[in-house]
């Protein structure tokens, strides 16, 4: 399917808060019960529709472990949206938000849309961070806020799509310079341009040779 725009996202937050699970739930509608530590970066992609326009989300999932922090930093640039995730059952992941936010603000373009996410809302019994605290933090720092569960998929769609809506609105308002790739937005490929300069294009027939 062709798309009108491509938005690049980055998911950040402490290790174990559920970043990779959120991505997996969003792209594959699956839940991964064991913690596969992310090493370096990974990414996933999905097509969504905003106001009937097809939009491709290319989502970079980063490693929360301290040792990979400098790799993570190099992915802020070129992201149009960020999901900043904490775990509502672990207070320390909430306490670290300020550091994450500083990092993000310092290394990203100033228009990047940041969505604050309190994940694991299904674990109400183990909750350590009240929903109101998340809301207050978001209000204070001008972020959009949502509680999600990568396990039950509660609010997961909304989190990604609402972020896309915000970015889309900003484009309509002319805030983003869509021709600058560093903003994490790309215009979709125009209708097939019959690109004959692609190497190998003429070699198709020869592939059948001896085998």
């Amino acid at each position, binding site marked *: 399917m062709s798309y009108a725009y491509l938005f690049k996202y980055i998911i950040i937050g402490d290790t174990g808060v559920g970043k990779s699970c959120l991505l997996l739930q969003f792209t594959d509608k699956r839940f991964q019960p064991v913690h596969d530590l992310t090493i370096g970066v990974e990414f996933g992609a999905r097509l969504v529709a905003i106001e009937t326009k097809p939009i491709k989300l290319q989502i970079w999932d980063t490693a929360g472990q301290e040792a990979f922090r400098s790799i993570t930093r190099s992915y802020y640039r070129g992201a149009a949206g960020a999901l900043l995730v904490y775990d509502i059952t672990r207070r320390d992941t909430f306490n670290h938000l300020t550091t994450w936010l500083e990092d993000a603000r310092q290394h990203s373009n100033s228009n990047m849309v940041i969505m604050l996410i309190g994940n694991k809302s299904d674990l109400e019994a183990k909750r350590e961070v009240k929903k109101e605290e998340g809301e207050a933090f978001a209000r204070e720092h001008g972020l959009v806020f949502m509680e999600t569960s990568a396990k039950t998929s509660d609010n997961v769609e909304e989190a990604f799509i609402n972020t896309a809506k915000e970015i889309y609105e900003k484009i309509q308002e002319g805030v983003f310079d869509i021709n600058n790739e560093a903003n994490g937005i790309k215009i979709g490929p125009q209708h*097939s341009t019959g690109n004959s300069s692609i190497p*190998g294009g003429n070699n198709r027939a020869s*592939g059948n040779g001896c085998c």
Partner: protein
Amino acid sequence: MIPVLNTILDSVMDTVAPPIPAFENFMYHWEKFMVNYLEWTTDGKYSQFHIEQTNVPSHLEIVQQILLSEDKNEEITTNLCMEYVLQNNLFNILVIMAEKEKLIGLRILILKFMTNIISQLRNPVLAHQSIFGPIQKLINLCHCVFYNERQQDQIHFLHTLCVLLNNQQNTAIMFFSYESELEESESQKLNTFNKLNLLDCILSYINTKDTEVYYKCCDCILLLTKLNDENVMDLIVKNTNLCSTFSTHLRNLFHTLPPILDYKGLETIELNWKNDYNANYSNDVTKFFCWLNFIIEVIRDGQLKISCSLCESLRLFFFNKLFDTIEEFSLSKVFLLKKMYKASNYTPLNYTMNNWLRSEFDCLYYNKQTPIDILIKLSLTNDDGFVFQILSFFTDVLLNADEEILDFIILRFVSNRDYYERCKSGSWSDEEDEREKKLLSNKNNINTSRTLAPSSIDRIINRLLALIPQNVQSDPSHSFKNYILSTKNNYEEIFTKFKKFNWPSEALDPVEQLENFDEGPFLRMIFKKISNIPNQSVLITSQIKTILIFLSYLPHPYLHEYLLNSTLPLKRNVSSVYTILNHVLKELHKQIVTIPNYNNELIHSRNQILKNISNQLVFNEKDTQAKVFHSAVILEELCKELVAVLFVKYHYSNSV
């Protein structure tokens, strides 16, 4: 692989719908490549065929071209193909094929493919699992000990990677055994050694017989040790074999050195690993010095943390082990130590060597002695060549101006002023008392240091000059004027160098004086050598002269007055340079005046020595008569130079 296949299909359905030629083309050739490969390796059999006899390489070649050209045109098209590769972990499939190598040559084909990909992509996403995972596996497939035949291709891949890491330093951490835990179990099955980190892999090439490979290997090491990432530095120090490999290799090369070296030839040569090494033709000596040169470069240019741990490892596994057994300090060993010492100048290794020189050995054989202790002892032997080498090493050590070494060898013995006879009421102390009174009354008036003995300076100078009787002076003018300019320059240089040291400015009486004075083993040895001048090689005598003059330059008040102030009242049995010189010169003169025509001989010797100053000194040591004359001339010049130093120091202190 089933879920992967599913996603492949999904993706294909997703993206193929509106025809995008590049991607279609890509899928076509990728599938062709796979089918081709599977056909050649039917039922998982190992094929007898070489990859070049199949169509496998040509399809892979096109896959590579499409990926690279897509990357180049990314602005107008999209990077769909690459996205597909990453999401479906295609590189990993390739590398698993390379691991199994069921078609001969597949490993190198894929190695080259990946080398091209990572070196030509505008932004290879090294941190992505689908890239670094396969690369890590390829690193395993490049260990020189297990894969020996295609070293050039392998090191080219490793070198490409190192250059990349140097450009994207934050991703370097991926290749220092931060392997993903989930992959570990998987790769354990696939590889015999699953956690070969990049640097260890590169280190496996240091014994290569291919010079080009050697250079690239060294270059890789330099690139990696310069990486500015705290985590990487820590991992290099803790998890790699860098330090132990460096020390062990140096030790192995050291032990293959011949017992006797071409000392004259090697004295001035500085062998350089980049220009002088040849893996096939270099002899053991060249190999050793090139490796030393390389180590020093890593220590000098690498991250300080890595340099320090390298130095520490060299101390433990090289220097300490040098004299581990009953192995003696031989002439060649001292020579090599000296060369290493020189080479280490201005690097942390210099600090390490200085430290080592004054640390006690803890092996039984050398029972609590330091290398310096041992060297001093050995320099009392009669083997002139050996002694010369030791003294020349000592000269370098002293000139290196390490505060602690100087203290250890000399200063700690004189710093308590125990040589000084206090109660004796001589003219000097009267004079000094007088001065002191003046000082107290009018501080600004006289700024000359009391240690320089301003009121006795003329006498001190005259006494030194008078040590050479007129009839045996090889230069009738007997003046130190010629030395003043060079002495002044030297002194200014030395003065600024030593200013930072915490040395006292005046020689003052200590609170508690020891009964007996001990000048310490080093000065004792030097004094012995001065007394021994008539019997020893002229080379040694001139080395002693160099040391003595250097010491006299030092702006250390106690050393200064002890060595140079011949009017200072000394305790009984305390040796002084002046009395020893006096003694030995008398003996020389006695011998000289019995020789007919001795004046001409003296002038002849003088010319010879002056000619030899710049070149290496070459003397006929068998000719005992010539030795007497040469020694006399050297001492004559020594006295004048000492006078020049006294003069310059005195005037310098007045002008500062």
